[in-house]
Structure formats: C-alpha cells, structure tokens
C-alpha cells in the first residue's frame, strides 16, 4: 500500500477510533444491564450498575420465571401476534404491491398514489382511536395487535420496486403458455421474490415483537399484554412506588411484585432474548434487504 499523507493518516485514525468507540458504546449498555440482571439486588442498590457481576445472584430470573406467570403469558401473546402479524403483512403487502408493478395495468399509478397519500397524511391519533374502539370494537382483543399494523406505504414502496426489477418477459412467456395471472403470481413471481419477502417479514417481525404502544392505547386485559408493554408497566410501577409512599402503604400492596432493579433488568433481557439469539441471522438479511431497496430507491 502506498504511503498515505499525514492528513490521510490522521483521517484514518479518526475513523478507526470513532467507529471503534461508537461500536463498543452500542453494545455497552446492554452488557451493563446483562451484568446487573445477574447481580444481587442489595449490591445493586449499594454500588450501582457496573461492568462486572459483583455478587452473582439468580433471584431476579427465578422470580420472573416462577412468579405470577405474567412473563409466560406475555411471551405467548408476543410470539403469537408476531407470527400472525408477519404472515398477514407479507401476504397483504405483496398482493397489493405486485399488480402495482405490472406495467400493462392501466390504473396502477392511481392505486400507487392512493397508497402513498397515506404516507404523508393521516387522520391522527384520535380518529384512529375512535374508529378502532367504537366502530370496530377491537379493544382488548388480540386482533388489534395484529391487523392495523399490517399494511404501510413504505413496505409497499419497497416491494413494488423489487417486483419491478423482475423481467417482464417472465410473466409474458408464462401468459403465452396459457398461465393465469394468479398462477404467475404464486408460482413464478413469489418464489423469485424471496429476498424482499424475507426483508419485509423481518421489518414486520421486529415491529410486532416490540409492540407496546397499541397495548397502551387499546388493551386493559392483562392477559393480552406484550413483552415490551410488561416492561413499560414495570417501569411505571417502579416510578410510582419509588415516589413518596410510606412503608405501610407499600406493605399493604402485598402480593404485587414490587419491580426491583433486578427484576426490571432481567425482564428486559428476557424480552430481547430471541432477538439477540437470532441476531447474526437477522442482521445479514436486514442489510441485504435494505441495500436492495436503497440502490433502487
């Protein structure tokens, strides 16, 4: 390699250091939380969070897994809504986006426009809330966590762009051979679209797994809480309890699990477990999918 100038070498140093530092910082908080989840509660209160486990203790995890069962329920809800949601999203998005990419379809631009408008303008929180609760009666059901999130203009945009890159000759020659449009879609187009379908499925899966806002708005039944909402609630309860409640009031709260630091951190770890385990796989696909979309878009 040629000798780089002083300016260039400084620049490279800056790059290496910043990227290195930033990367470590990205993972550090999670590491600290992980360490804390395995640390004894009293030790945490006394010395705070740190880089290492000072006093190994599995109590937090034991409490979560043997306790009220709310974590198991939340896991069930989250997994169920994620799977159903991903299937619905992929089906809805691809079936809508494919015709938009067929150049011979006369009204496709109008339909695209119809879809894109929803990306720049919407009714807002209140009308959506009223629609979902008063008209559709979706509150306190599993459906409210699955259906409304399924279709959005951005995903349609990505899929449509991908479908447009598939050669028209494919569909043409199949039609000459007598295949119907539906056959072409299911047996030719979809199998060739695995990359984009996987990407959208991934986007959707992350979204569904992390869902808590819709629970906040539409769900009061604690059987239907998602994992992330559980964490949100633990945070709120902790805040509430840490404010000026007297000792007797706290005692009177009795059976409720008081969210100690350990429990909150451990629950957080448990909620992102699958994401971390699947991460190498997720990451590869995510990046591949984004680059397909970005280069075209």
């Amino acid at each position: 390699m040629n000798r780089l100038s002083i300016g260039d070498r400084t620049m490279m140093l800056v790059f290496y250091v910043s990227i290195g530092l930033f990367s470590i910082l990205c993972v550090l908080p999670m590491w600290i939380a992980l360490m804390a989840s395995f640390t004894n509660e009293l030790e945490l209160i006394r010395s705070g969070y740190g880089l290492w486990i000072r006093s190994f203790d599995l109590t937090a995890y034991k409490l979560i897994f043997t306790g009220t069962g709310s974590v198991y329920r939340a896991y069930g809800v989250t997994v169920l809504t994620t799977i159903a949601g991903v299937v619905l999203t992929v089906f809805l998005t691809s079936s809508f986006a494919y015709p938009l990419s067929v150049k011979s379809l006369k009204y496709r631009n109008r339909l695209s426009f119809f879809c894109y408008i929803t990306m720049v303008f919407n009714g807002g929180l209140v009308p959506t809330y009223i629609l979902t609760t008063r008209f559709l009666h979706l509150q306190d059901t599993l459906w409210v966590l699955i259906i409304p999130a399924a279709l959005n203009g951005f995903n349609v945009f990505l899929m449509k762009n991908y479908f447009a890159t598939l050669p028209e000759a494919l569909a043409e020659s199949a039609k000459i051979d007598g295949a119907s449009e539906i056959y072409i879609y299911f047996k030719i187009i979809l199998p060739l679209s695995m990359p984009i379908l996987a990407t959208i499925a991934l986007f959707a899966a992350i979204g569904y797994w992390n869902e808590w806002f819709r629970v906040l708005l539409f769900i009061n039944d604690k059987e239907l809480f998602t994992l992330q909402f559980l964490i949100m609630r633990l945070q709120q309860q902790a805040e509430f309890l840490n404010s000026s409640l007297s000792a007797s009031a706290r005692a009177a709260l009795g059976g409720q699990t008081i969210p100690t630091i350990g429990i909150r951190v451990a629950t957080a770890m448990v909620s992102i477990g699958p994401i971390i385990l699947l991460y190498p796989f997720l990451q590869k696909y995510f990046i591949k999918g984004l680059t397909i979309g970005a280069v075209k878009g």
Partner: protein
Amino acid sequence: MLHEIAKNRYLYLLTVPGIVFLIVFNYLPMVGLYLSFVDYNPMAGLYGMKSEFVGLSNFEFFFGSGDWVAITFNTLYLNALFIVTGLAVQMFMAIGLNEVAGNRFKKLAQSFMFLPNFLSWTVVSIFSIAVFSTDTGVVNAVLTALGLEPINFYQDASKWPLILVLLKLWKGVGFGTVIYLATLAGMDQEMFEAAKIDGASRFQSILYLTLPMLKTTTILLLILLVGGIFYGDFGMIFALIGDNPLLRPTTDVIDTYVYRALRMNNDIGMSSAVGLFQAFVGFILVVSVNGITRKIEKDSALF
C-alpha cells in the same frame, strides 16, 4: 374502465384486500378529522355524529393555552437536532466504514452498530436508567470516581435535549449507515483511481467525489424526515421519560401532550384539532420541500 378491469380482473382482485385495508385504517380516520370542529358528545346521534359544531374553538383552546409554544418548540427543536445529527453521523460512519481496511473490523463494527436498532425504546429506557441514574448509574459512578459532583439527570430538564439526541443517535445510526453504505458501494471506482493518479489525497477524494455522490440520498432522506418534523417521537419520549413532570419543559412534545389530554381529560376535540394541525402542516412541508427540490435537483425529488 370496466373493460380494463375485466381484462386484468385477477390482478385487480389481488389489490382488493389492500384497498379495503387502506380505506378502513387510513382513509376512514381522515373522515374523523371533523372531530376537530365539533364539541364531541358520544351520546349525540349515532356515534356522536350529531355533536355540536363549534368551528375553530378547539383550535383556539390549544393555541390560546400558551403551552403550545413550548411543546411545538420542543417538537421542532428535538426533531431538527435528530435529523441534522443523524444524517451527519450516518454519513461519517458510512464513509468511515467504506475507507477502513480489515474486513473483520468492518463486519464486527457494523454488527455492533446495528444492534440497538432492533431494541424497543422500553428496553432502551432500562439501559438509560443503568447509565444515567443518580445513585446507581454508570455515568455518575465515573464522575464520583473522578472526584466530580454527580449529576441528577432524571430531575434536570436542561440535560435532556442532549441525552435524547445521544440516545436517538445510539439507536438509529446503524440503520442510516447501511443505507449510505449501499449508495457508496454503488459508486464508480474509476473516478477515485483517476483522482489518485492526479495526486489527490484520500481526504480530498472524499470531500470532492464521495460527498457530492451522497447528496441525492441525503436529500431524499431529508424530504421524508422533514415531513414528519411536527410529529414527536412518542414511543421514544414516553418510554424514556414516562410521566416525569420535572422533565417536561424540554421533553414534552406535541404527541405526549395530546396523549395526556386524551387520557387524563378525555379532550377529544382538542386532541383531534392538534392531530389535524400536525397532519396538515406535515403535508404542506413535504410537498413544499419536494417542490423546491424539483426546481434545484430534479432527480432527488420524491414525486
């Protein structure tokens, strides 16, 4: 028209579920914008549709309350900070990753940087406490070890624009960097070879060749982001700050304000009015910025 639909009936059939979905979940709520102009009474007529028309008084209530200045400022200010710092850092990281050698370093760095993107803000708030908490947080532990005064982050509103920007960067940079990297990967290498032969340093090549190449992507991203500048990141702020009134002066955005009005006071009228305000202004912004871009740099425009 019927002839066209009949000819391609199966394709149009495929679009029907999507159309129905969009009508129900996106267009019907738009009808609900009329709620901004009435005094909502759920008892009046079917679903409260006969509620009394009150013109602009819901808007007056919001704008007259005096709060609106602070929360609108917070919303715009925070979003502007997010946009500017986000794009800058993403570009820096992407260019950096493109320049450094060492495949393993690159892959590892990217993996680490991308991870926070997969986390929900609720989990991030747990981490945030681990870092910024007054008695137990890591930052204060370091400060105390250095002999400095610990900072009471969760009770000091002035620190939070900075903290929010840092957290937003932490969580979002990985994502944007990938987009920029894709653009960089598509660049023509011959240009850089020629520049090197002409004696340009790497730094100069980046300044004069790489950056202009990224202009298109940046403008596209800017248009999309500016359209949302009146929408606060509710998920982020609510998860990180919750109901802490001490931090409201600098972190309360339009969306959290409206949420509180809706849940605490059940103020349907004002909440819809503000929602309409956001949607309307956002729409105008996207169209204008797109229009301006069309005049200057036709290729970058969205439509």
